[in-house]
Protein backbone atom coordinates (compact mmCIF):
# COMPACT_ATOMS: atom_id res chain seq x y z
CA UNK A 1 0.00 0.00 0.00
CA UNK A 2 1.75 3.11 -1.21
CA UNK A 3 4.96 1.11 -1.70
CA UNK A 4 5.13 2.02 -5.38
CA UNK A 5 4.60 5.62 -4.52
CA UNK A 6 7.40 6.04 -2.02
CA UNK A 7 9.80 4.42 -4.50
CA UNK A 8 8.71 7.10 -6.95
CA UNK A 9 9.41 9.78 -4.35
CA UNK A 10 12.97 8.51 -3.87
CA UNK A 11 13.54 8.46 -7.61
CA UNK A 12 12.65 12.14 -7.79
CA UNK A 13 15.37 12.82 -5.21
CA UNK A 14 13.16 15.20 -3.33
CA UNK A 15 14.82 17.37 -0.74
CA UNK A 16 13.39 16.53 2.67
CA UNK A 17 10.72 19.13 3.10
CA UNK A 18 12.25 22.00 5.09
CA UNK A 19 9.97 23.71 7.56
CA UNK A 20 10.71 27.18 6.24
CA UNK A 21 11.69 26.80 2.64
CA UNK A 22 14.04 29.36 1.29
CA UNK A 23 14.45 30.17 -2.41
CA UNK A 24 17.97 28.82 -2.16
CA UNK A 25 16.59 25.48 -0.87
CA UNK A 26 14.62 24.68 -4.00
CA UNK A 27 15.89 21.81 -6.12
CA UNK A 28 17.88 22.81 -9.21
CA UNK A 29 15.08 21.67 -11.50
CA UNK A 30 12.65 24.15 -9.89
CA UNK A 31 15.15 26.99 -10.01
CA UNK A 32 15.78 26.19 -13.66
CA UNK A 33 12.04 26.53 -14.37
CA UNK A 34 11.95 29.89 -12.60
CA UNK A 35 14.96 31.10 -14.56
CA UNK A 36 13.39 29.95 -17.82
CA UNK A 37 10.68 32.61 -17.30
CA UNK A 38 13.27 35.39 -17.40
CA UNK A 39 15.17 37.22 -20.12
CA UNK A 40 18.78 36.15 -20.85
CA UNK A 41 20.36 39.14 -19.12
CA UNK A 42 18.32 38.48 -15.95
CA UNK A 43 19.17 34.78 -16.05
CA UNK A 44 22.89 35.45 -16.31
CA UNK A 45 22.68 38.07 -13.58
CA UNK A 46 20.76 35.84 -11.15
CA UNK A 47 23.12 32.95 -11.89
CA UNK A 48 25.45 34.83 -9.56
CA UNK A 49 23.12 34.51 -6.54
CA UNK A 50 24.68 31.31 -5.31
CA UNK A 51 26.11 28.06 -6.62
CA UNK A 52 22.73 26.37 -7.02
CA UNK A 53 21.44 29.22 -9.16
CA UNK A 54 24.67 29.14 -11.12
CA UNK A 55 24.35 25.44 -11.79
CA UNK A 56 20.67 25.74 -12.67
CA UNK A 57 21.41 28.43 -15.24
CA UNK A 58 23.15 25.85 -17.42
CA UNK A 59 20.11 23.58 -17.67
CA UNK A 60 18.76 23.07 -21.19
CA UNK A 61 15.21 23.74 -20.03
CA UNK A 62 16.19 27.36 -19.25
CA UNK A 63 17.30 28.08 -22.83
CA UNK A 64 15.28 25.68 -24.96
CA UNK A 65 12.23 27.94 -25.35
CA UNK A 66 14.43 30.88 -26.28
CA UNK A 67 15.89 29.11 -29.29
CA UNK A 68 14.19 29.04 -32.68
CA UNK A 69 12.51 25.70 -33.28
CA UNK A 70 14.92 24.84 -36.09
CA UNK A 71 18.08 25.69 -34.15
CA UNK A 72 19.58 22.27 -34.85
CA UNK A 73 19.54 23.01 -38.57
CA UNK A 74 21.08 26.43 -37.96
CA UNK A 75 23.83 24.86 -35.85
CA UNK A 76 24.70 22.46 -38.67
CA UNK A 77 24.67 25.28 -41.21
CA UNK A 78 26.53 27.97 -39.32
CA UNK A 79 28.82 26.43 -36.75
CA UNK A 80 32.12 24.82 -37.65
CA UNK A 81 32.21 21.09 -38.25
CA UNK A 82 33.90 20.43 -34.91
CA UNK A 83 31.43 22.57 -32.99
CA UNK A 84 28.31 21.11 -34.53
CA UNK A 85 29.44 17.55 -33.89
CA UNK A 86 29.97 18.27 -30.17
CA UNK A 87 26.97 17.99 -27.96
CA UNK A 88 26.52 21.68 -27.29
CA UNK A 89 24.20 22.72 -24.47
CA UNK A 90 21.19 24.88 -25.35
CA UNK A 91 22.85 27.73 -23.47
CA UNK A 92 25.99 27.46 -25.58
CA UNK A 93 23.92 27.38 -28.75
CA UNK A 94 21.93 30.40 -27.61
CA UNK A 95 24.98 32.45 -26.71
CA UNK A 96 26.66 31.62 -30.04
CA UNK A 97 23.59 32.48 -32.09
CA UNK A 98 23.15 35.83 -30.31
CA UNK A 99 26.42 37.06 -31.67
CA UNK A 100 26.53 37.71 -35.42
CA UNK A 101 27.82 34.77 -37.46
CA UNK A 102 29.26 35.36 -40.90
CA UNK A 103 28.48 33.00 -43.72
CA UNK A 104 28.50 32.86 -47.53
CA UNK A 105 32.12 33.89 -47.86
CA UNK A 106 31.82 36.66 -45.25
CA UNK A 107 29.21 38.57 -47.26
CA UNK A 108 26.26 37.66 -45.05
CA UNK A 109 25.62 37.72 -41.34
CA UNK A 110 22.97 36.13 -39.14
CA UNK A 111 22.08 36.53 -35.48
CA UNK A 112 19.36 35.74 -33.02
CA UNK A 113 17.64 38.65 -31.32
CA UNK A 114 17.95 38.03 -27.58
CA UNK A 115 14.71 39.70 -26.64
CA UNK A 116 12.32 38.63 -29.34
CA UNK A 117 13.94 35.32 -30.35
CA UNK A 118 13.82 36.24 -34.00
CA UNK A 119 16.42 35.42 -36.58
CA UNK A 120 17.89 38.43 -38.43
CA UNK A 121 20.05 38.40 -41.54
CA UNK A 122 22.20 41.12 -43.08
CA UNK A 123 23.59 40.87 -46.62
CA UNK A 124 26.48 43.11 -47.57
CA UNK A 125 26.58 44.85 -50.96
CA UNK A 126 29.56 42.59 -51.57
CA UNK A 127 27.14 39.67 -51.69
CA UNK A 128 24.99 41.35 -54.35
CA UNK A 129 25.20 41.73 -58.10
CA UNK A 130 25.57 45.42 -58.93
CA UNK A 131 25.79 46.70 -62.50
CA UNK A 132 29.08 48.53 -63.02
CA UNK A 133 30.34 47.92 -59.50
CA UNK A 134 33.90 47.46 -60.60
CA UNK A 135 33.92 50.49 -62.86
CA UNK A 136 35.43 53.31 -60.88
CA UNK A 137 33.66 55.88 -63.00
CA UNK A 138 30.45 54.75 -61.41
CA UNK A 139 31.05 53.12 -58.06
CA UNK A 140 33.70 53.42 -55.37
CA UNK A 141 34.13 51.08 -52.44
CA UNK A 142 34.62 52.79 -49.10
CA UNK A 143 35.85 51.34 -45.82
CA UNK A 144 33.78 52.61 -42.93
CA UNK A 145 32.75 51.69 -39.42
CA UNK A 146 29.20 52.77 -40.21
CA UNK A 147 28.54 49.36 -41.73
CA UNK A 148 28.55 46.07 -39.89
CA UNK A 149 30.56 44.74 -42.82
CA UNK A 150 32.93 47.73 -42.62
CA UNK A 151 32.42 48.58 -46.26
CA UNK A 152 29.89 50.44 -48.35
CA UNK A 153 29.54 51.11 -52.06
CA UNK A 154 29.18 54.73 -53.18
CA UNK A 155 27.48 55.57 -56.47
CA UNK A 156 29.22 58.57 -58.04
CA UNK A 157 27.02 58.87 -61.06
CA UNK A 158 25.23 56.47 -63.39
CA UNK A 159 22.21 56.14 -65.65
CA UNK A 160 21.69 52.52 -64.78
CA UNK A 161 21.26 51.71 -61.12
CA UNK A 162 20.62 48.03 -60.70
CA UNK A 163 21.31 45.96 -57.62
CA UNK A 164 20.26 42.34 -57.19
CA UNK A 165 20.79 39.71 -54.57
CA UNK A 166 19.46 36.45 -53.33
CA UNK A 167 19.40 34.37 -50.21
CA UNK A 168 18.64 30.79 -49.32
CA UNK A 169 18.18 30.38 -45.60
CA UNK A 170 16.22 28.29 -43.11
CA UNK A 171 14.24 31.06 -41.43
CA UNK A 172 12.13 29.86 -38.52
CA UNK A 173 8.42 30.11 -39.32
CA UNK A 174 7.09 33.64 -38.94
CA UNK A 175 6.67 36.99 -40.64
CA UNK A 176 9.68 38.91 -41.91
CA UNK A 177 10.42 42.29 -43.46
CA UNK A 178 13.22 43.13 -45.89
CA UNK A 179 14.95 46.51 -46.11
CA UNK A 180 17.72 48.16 -48.09
CA UNK A 181 20.05 50.25 -45.94
CA UNK A 182 20.89 53.34 -47.96
CA UNK A 183 22.15 56.85 -47.49
CA UNK A 184 21.84 59.82 -49.77
CA UNK A 185 25.15 61.63 -49.96
CA UNK A 186 28.51 60.74 -48.59
CA UNK A 187 29.83 61.50 -45.15
CA UNK A 188 33.27 61.76 -43.71
CA UNK A 189 34.78 62.49 -40.34
CA UNK A 190 36.67 65.75 -39.85
CA UNK A 191 38.11 66.47 -36.44
CA UNK A 192 35.70 64.07 -34.81
CA UNK A 193 32.63 65.49 -36.54
CA UNK A 194 30.57 63.60 -39.06
CA UNK A 195 29.88 65.82 -42.05
CA UNK A 196 28.14 65.40 -45.35
CA UNK A 197 30.62 65.86 -48.19
CA UNK A 198 30.07 66.40 -51.93
CA UNK A 199 26.45 67.32 -51.36
CA UNK A 200 26.39 69.27 -54.64
CA UNK A 201 26.96 65.99 -56.48
CA UNK A 202 23.74 64.43 -55.22
CA UNK A 203 21.01 64.48 -57.84
CA UNK A 204 18.42 62.46 -59.69
CA UNK A 205 16.51 60.96 -56.76
CA UNK A 206 13.41 63.07 -56.86
CA UNK A 207 12.73 62.68 -60.60
CA UNK A 208 11.58 59.11 -60.74
CA UNK A 209 11.18 56.61 -57.90
CA UNK A 210 13.45 53.63 -57.29
CA UNK A 211 11.77 50.28 -57.78
CA UNK A 212 12.31 47.77 -55.01
CA UNK A 213 11.31 44.15 -55.44
CA UNK A 214 11.17 41.03 -53.35
CA UNK A 215 10.34 37.61 -54.72
CA UNK A 216 10.17 34.22 -53.08
CA UNK A 217 10.45 30.86 -54.79
CA UNK A 218 7.01 29.96 -53.40
CA UNK A 219 5.41 32.81 -55.34
CA UNK A 220 5.22 35.59 -52.73
CA UNK A 221 6.11 38.82 -54.49
CA UNK A 222 6.11 42.50 -53.54
CA UNK A 223 7.08 45.61 -55.42
CA UNK A 224 7.40 49.08 -54.01
CA UNK A 225 8.29 52.31 -55.72
CA UNK A 226 9.95 54.87 -53.53
CA UNK A 227 11.54 58.26 -53.95
CA UNK A 228 14.82 58.41 -52.07
CA UNK A 229 14.12 61.87 -50.80
CA UNK A 230 15.32 61.64 -47.24
CA UNK A 231 17.80 64.10 -45.81
CA UNK A 232 21.37 63.59 -46.95
CA UNK A 233 23.86 62.07 -44.60
CA UNK A 234 21.42 59.84 -42.77
CA UNK A 235 21.25 56.05 -43.07
CA UNK A 236 17.73 54.92 -43.81
CA UNK A 237 16.08 51.52 -44.03
CA UNK A 238 13.88 51.42 -47.12
CA UNK A 239 11.15 48.85 -46.70
CA UNK A 240 10.96 46.57 -49.72
CA UNK A 241 8.29 44.18 -48.52
CA UNK A 242 7.28 41.40 -46.16
CA UNK A 243 7.17 37.67 -46.49
CA UNK A 244 5.82 34.74 -44.54
CA UNK A 245 7.74 31.60 -43.73
CA UNK A 246 5.54 28.64 -42.90
CA UNK A 247 8.01 25.82 -42.59
CA UNK A 248 11.12 26.22 -40.45
CA UNK A 249 12.66 23.07 -41.84
CA UNK A 250 12.99 23.85 -45.51
CA UNK A 251 15.14 26.72 -46.81
CA UNK A 252 13.39 29.92 -47.80
CA UNK A 253 14.66 31.07 -51.20
CA UNK A 254 14.32 34.72 -52.01
CA UNK A 255 15.52 37.33 -54.48
CA UNK A 256 15.55 41.07 -53.92
CA UNK A 257 16.48 44.04 -56.06
CA UNK A 258 16.48 47.77 -56.38
CA UNK A 259 16.59 49.50 -59.73
CA UNK A 260 16.35 52.89 -61.34
CA UNK A 261 17.18 52.39 -64.99
CA UNK A 262 15.36 55.31 -66.58
CA UNK A 263 17.91 56.59 -69.06
CA UNK A 264 16.52 60.10 -69.25
CA UNK A 265 18.35 61.14 -66.12
CA UNK A 266 21.47 60.23 -64.19
CA UNK A 267 21.51 59.38 -60.53
CA UNK A 268 24.37 60.33 -58.24
CA UNK A 269 25.42 60.37 -54.63
CA UNK A 270 24.07 57.19 -53.04
CA UNK A 271 25.65 54.96 -50.41
CA UNK A 272 24.63 51.32 -50.43
CA UNK A 273 25.43 49.29 -47.36
CA UNK A 274 23.34 46.18 -47.15
CA UNK A 275 19.99 44.46 -47.07
CA UNK A 276 18.47 43.58 -43.71
CA UNK A 277 15.86 40.98 -42.95
CA UNK A 278 14.14 41.21 -39.56
CA UNK A 279 11.12 39.56 -37.97
CA UNK A 280 8.27 41.94 -38.77
CA UNK A 281 7.49 42.64 -35.08
CA UNK A 282 10.97 44.08 -34.68
CA UNK A 283 10.32 46.80 -37.23
CA UNK A 284 9.44 49.24 -34.50
CA UNK A 285 12.74 48.57 -32.79
CA UNK A 286 14.78 49.34 -35.89
CA UNK A 287 17.99 50.98 -34.86
CA UNK A 288 20.19 53.18 -36.98
CA UNK A 289 22.71 50.40 -37.50
Amino acid at each position, binding site marked *: MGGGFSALANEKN*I*VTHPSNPNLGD*LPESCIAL*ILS*CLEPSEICKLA*RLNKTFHQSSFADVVWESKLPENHQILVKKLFSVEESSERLSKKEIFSRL*CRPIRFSGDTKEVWLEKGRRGICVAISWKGMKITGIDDRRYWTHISTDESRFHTIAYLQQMWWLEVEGNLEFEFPAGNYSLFFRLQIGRTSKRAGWRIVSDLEQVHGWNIKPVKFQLELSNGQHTTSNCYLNEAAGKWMHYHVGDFVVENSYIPTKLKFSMAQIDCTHTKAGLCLDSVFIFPSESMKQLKQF
Partner: protein
Amino acid sequence: MSSSEERKLILKSSDNEEFVVKESSAVQCLTIKNLVEDRCVSDPIPLANVDSKILALVIEFMEKHAETTLSNSEKKEFDVEFVKKPFDDLLELILAANYLDFRELMDVLCNTCAKQMENWSVEEVREKFNIQNDYTVEEEKAARAENPWAFE
Protein backbone atom coordinates in the same frame (compact mmCIF):
# COMPACT_ATOMS: atom_id res chain seq x y z
CA MET B 1 -22.87 14.23 -15.52
CA SER B 2 -23.93 13.36 -11.97
CA SER B 3 -21.16 13.33 -9.40
CA SER B 4 -21.83 9.72 -8.49
CA GLU B 5 -20.60 8.63 -11.93
CA GLU B 6 -17.29 10.44 -11.50
CA ARG B 7 -14.35 8.39 -10.28
CA LYS B 8 -12.96 9.79 -7.05
CA LEU B 9 -9.61 9.52 -5.38
CA ILE B 10 -8.60 10.15 -1.79
CA LEU B 11 -5.40 12.09 -1.21
CA LYS B 12 -3.83 12.07 2.24
CA SER B 13 -1.54 14.90 3.33
CA SER B 14 1.63 14.44 5.38
CA ASP B 15 -0.34 15.48 8.48
CA ASN B 16 -2.94 12.78 7.83
CA GLU B 17 -5.80 14.85 6.49
CA GLU B 18 -7.80 13.24 3.71
CA PHE B 19 -9.17 15.04 0.66
CA VAL B 20 -11.59 13.62 -1.86
CA VAL B 21 -10.96 14.73 -5.42
CA LYS B 22 -12.28 13.81 -8.84
CA GLU B 23 -9.87 11.52 -10.65
CA SER B 24 -10.27 13.65 -13.75
CA SER B 25 -8.93 16.68 -11.85
CA ALA B 26 -6.21 14.77 -10.01
CA VAL B 27 -4.61 13.33 -13.12
CA GLN B 28 -3.35 16.81 -14.03
CA CYS B 29 -0.64 15.73 -11.59
CA LEU B 30 1.44 13.34 -13.64
CA THR B 31 2.61 11.54 -10.51
CA ILE B 32 -1.00 10.64 -9.72
CA LYS B 33 -1.82 10.00 -13.37
CA ASN B 34 0.99 7.43 -13.58
CA LEU B 35 -0.32 5.65 -10.51
CA VAL B 36 -3.82 5.51 -11.98
CA GLU B 37 -2.57 4.21 -15.32
CA ASP B 38 -0.35 1.62 -13.67
CA ARG B 39 -3.25 0.64 -11.46
CA CYS B 40 -1.14 1.23 -8.36
CA VAL B 41 -3.68 3.44 -6.68
CA SER B 42 -3.93 2.80 -3.01
CA ASP B 43 -6.78 4.15 -0.98
CA PRO B 44 -5.99 6.80 0.21
CA ILE B 45 -2.91 7.96 -1.77
CA PRO B 46 -0.35 9.15 0.78
CA LEU B 47 1.48 12.36 -0.14
CA ALA B 48 4.33 12.39 2.34
CA ASN B 49 5.76 15.68 1.16
CA VAL B 50 2.65 17.84 1.12
CA ASP B 51 0.90 19.14 4.23
CA SER B 52 -2.85 19.77 4.42
CA LYS B 53 -2.63 23.56 4.07
CA ILE B 54 -0.69 23.30 0.82
CA LEU B 55 -2.61 20.30 -0.46
CA ALA B 56 -5.87 22.21 -0.05
CA LEU B 57 -4.45 25.00 -2.21
CA VAL B 58 -3.18 22.56 -4.82
CA ILE B 59 -6.62 20.96 -4.99
CA GLU B 60 -8.27 24.37 -5.34
CA PHE B 61 -6.04 25.13 -8.35
CA MET B 62 -6.43 21.65 -9.75
CA GLU B 63 -10.22 21.75 -9.70
CA LYS B 64 -10.42 25.23 -11.18
CA HIS B 65 -8.20 24.26 -14.08
CA ALA B 66 -10.12 21.04 -14.68
CA GLU B 67 -13.39 22.92 -15.13
CA THR B 68 -14.30 22.69 -18.78
CA THR B 69 -16.87 25.48 -18.54
CA LEU B 70 -14.24 28.12 -17.76
CA SER B 71 -12.52 30.05 -20.52
CA ASN B 72 -8.76 30.50 -20.61
CA SER B 73 -9.06 34.14 -19.61
CA GLU B 74 -11.23 33.20 -16.62
CA LYS B 75 -8.58 30.68 -15.58
CA LYS B 76 -5.92 33.36 -15.97
CA GLU B 77 -7.91 35.72 -13.77
CA PHE B 78 -8.10 32.98 -11.15
CA ASP B 79 -4.34 32.42 -11.43
CA VAL B 80 -3.63 36.12 -10.85
CA GLU B 81 -5.58 36.02 -7.59
CA PHE B 82 -4.28 32.60 -6.61
CA VAL B 83 -0.65 33.70 -6.55
CA LYS B 84 -1.34 36.61 -4.23
CA LYS B 85 0.03 34.70 -1.29
CA PRO B 86 3.00 35.06 1.02
CA PHE B 87 6.22 34.11 -0.71
CA ASP B 88 6.81 31.22 1.68
CA ASP B 89 3.50 29.68 0.61
CA LEU B 90 4.50 30.05 -3.02
CA LEU B 91 7.74 28.19 -2.36
CA GLU B 92 5.89 25.39 -0.57
CA LEU B 93 3.48 25.22 -3.49
CA ILE B 94 6.41 24.96 -5.90
CA LEU B 95 7.82 22.05 -3.92
CA ALA B 96 4.40 20.39 -3.91
CA ALA B 97 3.85 20.99 -7.64
CA ASN B 98 7.29 19.56 -8.31
CA TYR B 99 6.60 16.49 -6.19
CA LEU B 100 3.23 15.94 -7.84
CA ASP B 101 4.57 16.82 -11.30
CA PHE B 102 1.77 19.33 -11.85
CA ARG B 103 3.13 21.31 -14.77
CA GLU B 104 0.39 23.89 -15.11
CA LEU B 105 0.62 24.93 -11.48
CA MET B 106 4.40 24.87 -11.71
CA ASP B 107 4.41 27.25 -14.66
CA VAL B 108 2.14 29.77 -12.94
CA LEU B 109 4.17 29.69 -9.72
CA CYS B 110 7.57 29.90 -11.43
CA ASN B 111 6.42 32.81 -13.52
CA THR B 112 5.26 34.62 -10.38
CA CYS B 113 8.56 34.02 -8.58
CA ALA B 114 10.51 35.09 -11.62
CA LYS B 115 8.59 38.38 -11.80
CA GLN B 116 9.35 39.07 -8.14
CA MET B 117 13.05 38.54 -8.73
CA GLU B 118 13.63 40.45 -11.91
CA ASN B 119 15.08 43.94 -12.13
CA TRP B 120 16.71 43.78 -8.74
CA SER B 121 20.47 43.63 -8.26
CA VAL B 122 22.04 40.39 -7.06
CA GLU B 123 22.64 41.82 -3.59
CA GLU B 124 19.05 43.04 -3.32
CA VAL B 125 17.66 39.65 -4.33
CA ARG B 126 19.87 37.89 -1.80
CA GLU B 127 18.63 40.18 0.94
CA LYS B 128 14.99 40.10 -0.12
CA PHE B 129 14.83 36.32 -0.33
CA ASN B 130 17.39 35.48 2.30
CA ILE B 131 19.68 33.56 -0.04
CA GLN B 132 23.04 32.49 1.30
CA ASN B 133 25.96 33.53 -0.82
CA ASP B 134 28.20 30.47 -0.93
CA TYR B 135 30.77 31.93 -3.32
CA THR B 136 34.29 32.88 -2.36
CA VAL B 137 35.42 36.36 -3.41
CA GLU B 138 37.39 34.94 -6.35
CA GLU B 139 34.53 32.72 -7.49
CA GLU B 140 32.15 35.64 -7.39
CA LYS B 141 34.53 37.79 -9.42
CA ALA B 142 34.80 35.01 -12.02
CA ALA B 143 31.02 34.62 -12.13
CA ARG B 144 30.60 38.35 -12.65
CA ALA B 145 32.82 38.18 -15.74
CA GLU B 146 30.87 35.34 -17.34
CA ASN B 147 28.34 35.80 -20.11
CA PRO B 148 29.19 39.30 -21.34
CA TRP B 149 27.16 38.49 -24.45
CA ALA B 150 23.94 38.50 -22.41
CA PHE B 151 24.36 42.15 -21.52
CA GLU B 152 25.28 43.52 -24.93
